[in-house]
């Protein structure tokens, strides 16, 4: 779990071009969207690709999936629970 959280932070920084942010700067439990890292709907699409490309986990962009996108931790939990 901790390893996935660390990996996810690195993927987010790389794929979303988060300038001047290190993995240590990202609070795994803080919200990713809105006030937190300030991500938007395009980032949500990129996150779906991070999950699918790196972990083989599919995630839809529907309202039901919203809680999964909440934080790095909720994403990591989703990966652990849905990984084959």
């Amino acid at each position: 779990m901790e390893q996935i959280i660390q990996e996810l932070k690195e993927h987010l920084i790389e794929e979303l071009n988060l300038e001047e942010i290190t993995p240590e700067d990202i609070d795994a439990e803080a919200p990713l969207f809105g006030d937190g890292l300030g991500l938007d709907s395009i980032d949500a699409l990129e996150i779906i690709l991070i999950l699918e490309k790196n972990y083989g986990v599919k995630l839809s962009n529907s309202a039901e999936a919203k809680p999964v996108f909440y934080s790095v931790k909720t994403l990591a939990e989703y990966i652990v629970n849905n990984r084959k």
Partner: protein
Amino acid sequence: MGLYVSNITSDSQVVTDVKVLVPDAGVRRRMSRVIRMAVSTAVECVGGIEGIDGLDAIITATGYGCLADSERFLRNVISDKEDLLNPTPFIQSTFNTVGGQIALLRHNHCYNMTYVNRIHSFEDALLDAFMRAEDGEGGRMLVGAFDERTDSQYEIMKRMGLWRKHDCGEGSVFVLLTSQKEDSSIAEVLEIDFPSDSIGEQDIAQRYGCSDDDVILYNVCCTMEIYPTISASVFAQAVEKIKKGASKVLVYNEMWGMTPTVVILGCIV
């Protein structure tokens, strides 16, 4: 009512760090090289990000648009066999990305247009501003041109034989225009013309009423490096000549087999 140059900025003159010009890291992070170049030039031209607030029109011009992002997405479509594609380069590839980004920086809802007419793009944008000024809808208008060089574009155009006399360049130029003469006005756009055929060097002066003291700049003679909207950079040179005392400067833009354009700048009287 007329069309007056209040400020003009080329990408090479941008001295302020992009982090100052575009303070929001969230906005900056998705910007490709050409978007960064063009938006920085635009913001510097209006005197900082707050300068966007007072704009009544944002009119951009580009020959080839955001080429690197277009190419990146196309490459991914082919190599990843249409599967699991990142949306960001596609979104950034549209021709109006720069104009949209400038508006978005300060949530400016004004008129927003993008011309993509190869070597005429900048002159078409100027004509739009000219007509808006005549219609009394001018106010403060930001008109800008940008084009980026990519390795693929260089290679393709080399195979077409286009780099025999010139090298492949890139750049962005933004000009702040007003429909009223202001204290800050540095030149007036007197005429924008689209002749249907080439005009010989000996005929230009007579046709446009230029005297011996007036300056005529030919885009293909003013620079070694060219790109589709190079005439915007020659327009910037023309503004410099006016600043240095010329009373009238004509920019003659003709290349790549297209019909010419003529833009005439005059000093403030």
